[in-house]
């Protein structure tokens, strides 16, 4: 399927994906139906965050704006993004949360960023959750002394290589100088100790915490060790947090190809690996939202270029591997990559084909993260499923519309209070990885750096794009679209399943995974089959009641004659709503 010169087999598109057979209703009508309940002010805001897609010219989306109080959101806070997501997975530094007990408890192993025990490191610090457990007197008299004591004692107990301290809401308010305490402790104990001002009320969502974490990791860890790994073809995998073992799966495939991972930020990563990650030849960015800052800063200071890649979905994995091969421009490496792809695909194909038979024609919707709602669409595409609606929880406009909109994103009060660190080329350590001629040649061959085009260009026309989806919109989506599966998080999951739609958690993977690369793809297809085709959905109505309402029954596709609600809405809409002149007569795709 990689050879584009041959015509794709029947039922497959030019990229090699099976063409989904499910169809969509008129998404403009659906959108109007979903928005109509809101009072004017709220509607004006939600209209900008709930769009019908046009992949050729993605409309502007009102992403990364504050959630209106009282609208129950799935978003988290700055602390969660910083401690929970980006830095939490580093397994051999101690993490101390400075604040009352809750925040540390709630970030205690909850994110499933796995780490394997290491021979030289008997203790895996991820299982420890440390907090200063501030009491009322600390709020009144200040918590700096308590923090200093906590750091000393934590050091005495574990002798870690480094300690990271995270501020929670009250710390910022009472004005504890966490950074000063850390500096003093660093001088006293002689290990690396640094703080993060990631109070929960800062920023719009956890996204602000990602940025703060990137800054801190870059300032306090990256570049401390200039000794590069000995292997050839060194890359960093950025924005991969090893949920359910994803990073291990990627690592395995890369290793087979002969590509060496200096550091994965920050899934199953050690402190040592971070300190020398600037010595790699290339940064490969997976989760653009959480780590693009780091990629940019490393390029400016050390000359490590970055590319966007994706190891979620079989086709995407192959594409990403080839892209890395092209960057290194080494015949042996490129050949090896093709061998690995051929091998892996030969093993995966039978599974994919079997699952396609059971899943093609089904529909999915996804509301998760800052990149998963995009990446996972490829897994659905692999088996001929159609993503009818998708949206992020905390992404910015560039994750939807592509990096080309970056210059036009307005800075507001919420983004202004997150530090932008000024980075310059390091006078000694900046090393361009490619000569200008090599770069020209790469570009001429269609190779793009910093190339994130966003989610919308890859979604079908007239699908729905919904940022920071609300409960009401989710309910409406289920009523109108009845997707065969929805991917979301734990806070939505049980509402969705109460309504008879299976929900796959894409934050914790429902404690499953891995889902990356080829083996992971097979895991995910099987998981989809298990969830969508399980008998339980058919057992909901007891035998003594009438047969289940067909509009509640599962697995029928959107234009199924049994899907009564949607036809009623569309019929009602047709009376009230007139299509714009330029709108196509039918939005059905495929």
């Amino acid at each position: 399927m990689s050879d584009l010169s041959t015509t794709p087999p029947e039922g497959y598109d030019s990229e090699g994906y099976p063409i989904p057979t499910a169809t969509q209703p008129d998404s403009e009508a659906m959108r109007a139906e979903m928005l109509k309940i809101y009072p004017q002010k709220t509607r004006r805001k939600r209209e900008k965050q709930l769009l019908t897609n046009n992949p050729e010219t993605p409309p502007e989306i009102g992403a990364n704006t504050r959630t209106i109080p009282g609208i129950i959101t799935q978003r988290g806070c700055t602390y969660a993004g910083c401690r929970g997501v980006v830095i939490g997975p580093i397994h051999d530094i101690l993490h101390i949360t400075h604040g009352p007990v809750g925040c540390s408890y709630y970030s205690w192993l909850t994110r499933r960023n796995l780490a394997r025990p290491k021979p030289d490191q008997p203790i895996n610090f991820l299982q420890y959750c440390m907090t200063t457990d501030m009491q009322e007197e600390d709020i009144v008299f200040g918590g700096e002394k308590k923090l200093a004591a906590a750091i000393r004692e934590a050091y005495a107990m574990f002798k870690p290589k480094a300690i990271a301290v995270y501020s929670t809401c009250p710390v910022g308010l009472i004005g504890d100088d966490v950074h000063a305490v850390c500096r003093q402790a660093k001088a006293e104990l002689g290990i690396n100790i640094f703080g993060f001002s990631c109070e929960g009320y800062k920023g719009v969502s956890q996204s602000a915490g990602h940025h703060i974490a990137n800054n801190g990791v870059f300032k306090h860890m990256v570049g401390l060790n200039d000794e590069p790994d000995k292997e050839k073809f060194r890359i960093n995998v950025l924005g991969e947090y090893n949920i359910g073992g994803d990073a291990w799966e990627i690592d395995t495939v890369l290793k087979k190809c002969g590509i060496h991972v200096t550091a994965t930020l920050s899934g199953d990563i050690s402190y040592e690996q971070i300190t020398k990650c600037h010595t790699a030849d290339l940064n490969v960015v997976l989760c653009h939202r959480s780590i693009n800052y780091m990629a940019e800063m490393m390029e400016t200071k050390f000359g490590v270029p970055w590319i966007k890649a994706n190891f979620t979905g079989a086709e995407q994995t192959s594409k990403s591997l080839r892209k890395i091969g092209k960057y290194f421009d080494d015949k042996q490496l490129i050949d090896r990559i093709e061998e690995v792809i051929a091998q892996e695909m030969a093993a995966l194909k039978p599974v994919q084909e079997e699952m396609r038979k059971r899943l093609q024609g089904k529909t999915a919707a996804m509301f998760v993260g800052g990149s998963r709602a995009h990446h996972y669409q490829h897994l659905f595409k692999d088996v001929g499923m159609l993503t009818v609606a998708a949206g992020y929880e905390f992404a910015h406009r560039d994750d939807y519309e592509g990096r080309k909109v970056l210059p036009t994103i307005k800075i507001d009060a919420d983004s202004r209070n997150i530090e932008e660190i000024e980075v310059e080329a390091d006078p000694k350590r900046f090393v361009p990885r490619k000569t200008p001629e090599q770069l020209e040649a790469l570009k001429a061959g269609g190779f793009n750096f910093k190339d994130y085009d966003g989610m919308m260009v890859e979604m079908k026309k007239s699908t729905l794009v919904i940022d920071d989806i609300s409960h009401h919109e989710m309910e409406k989506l289920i009523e109108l679209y009845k997707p065969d599966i929805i991917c979301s998080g734990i806070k939505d999951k049980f509402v969705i399943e109460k309504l008879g739609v299976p929900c796959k958690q894409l934050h914790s993977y429902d404690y499953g995974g891995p889902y990356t690369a080829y083996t992971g793809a097979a895991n995910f297809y099987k998981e989809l089959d298990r969830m969508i085709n399980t008998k339980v959905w058919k057992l909901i109505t007891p035998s003594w009641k009438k047969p289940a309402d067909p509009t509640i029954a599962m697995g029928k596709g959107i234009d199924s004659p049994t899907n009564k609600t949607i036809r009623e809405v569309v019929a009602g809409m047709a009376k009230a709503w007139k299509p714009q002149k330029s709108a196509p007569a039918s939005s059905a795709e495929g």
Partner: protein
Amino acid sequence: MSCSSCKPQVGPEEEGKEEFPGPTTNACKLCTPLGACLAYKGIAGTIPFLHGSQGCATYIRRYLISHFREPMDIAASNFAEHSAVFGGREVLHTGIENVSRQYKPELIGIATTCLSETIGENMPQLLHEYKNRTDVSHDAALVHVSTPSFKGTHVDGYHKAVRSIVESLAEAGPENVAGPVALMPGFVSAEDLRHLRELFAAYELPLTMVPDYSETMDGGSWAAYERIPVGGTTVEAVKALGSARAAIECGHILATTSKTAGAHLADKFSVPLHRIGLPIGLRETDRLCEVMGSIASRETPAAVEAARGRLIDAMVDGHKYVFNQRAVVYGDEDMVIGLTSFLCEIGVTPVLCASGGRSRHFAAELRKLVPELPESTIIREGADFSTIGTEAEALNPDLLIGNSKGYSLARRLKIPLIRCGFPIHDRMGGHRILHVGYRGALALYDTIVNAILERKQDTSSIGYAYL
């Protein structure tokens, strides 16, 4: 583990008490607003609402959902830096208004967070201002509770919210009306709440439980979308508690505090108050039955007697397996007291009783209620899992009894963990574990015995088939 040069200042109340300097490592308690949110979920048509950062609502929802595996909506006022500096009046009012319009709740249960408490939000004033506004919805009753997470644990937040609900809603009823019994069951499982209802039904006693999340947090599948899951004690029923014929409050530690829901009913409406422990194990359930019998003025129902009989019978049958087993018990203070009392009844020796709570009454209550507890048993309040782990390693226990957070310790010690209490996120049905009543004791008994037998078979080189 202490560092004498850097001990935090000890307040006057804490003099002579053991201080816990340094970090809390793997806490054995959660934060106060979590408890408040769960209590609010036990009132029909209620949306819990946190005045603070949206992260608090998200984290607490995440945590409660991982235990209950049910939808759990908590709204928040979504503080921004601006509101953190200038006060949260506007975000609070917008939030309440939006929740009222979208969810049409009967009640909005507001709890503060460390953020709003640190900036000193004057909640009565802010809510008073809301009530005086003419441009907003007033359909929902508003209850609020102060739950700074730097004061107390999730259990304290729970009891404080129960107190607020009763204090805000209960009204004086007509004279000479003996209304339903008010039962404040404490922080127990959904299955416990259902069983308590059954027990009261057996005594033919009408009952109002505050709270009752047995359905809202453990419901069936939905035919149609439920904005707020059905179930829970109605606002009407709570209002009528002014004429309750009696009030029962479960928790010995709870009883050491004066400001409780039961105390309010007793003080304001002269409702007779019975303070007992969580009815875990034989003796503590006996006490509940005595109280129910005296309120109902009737003999113990035959079905209840029969359940007690079955428990005794099982205790005789299984004594050889459990006798002299050494257990480490940890969790919420009242839960640990109940479990310890029960373990001593069946012949297990609790060697360490620990809780993250710091009521300063834990040891005294345990000694008083469980006089047979060996002198050597270590009792720790304000403990974290670092302390519990260190102590446990030296004690060579056979069993761990408590929530899921003891898993890594159990794994390290290679002993079974009997899951009880909250949170349980590594097994199915944590919210359906029955702890209370004779039936709860019997269920716990079987679980404990079977865990011991399983371990015996697993570690045996012979493989005994009859045990």
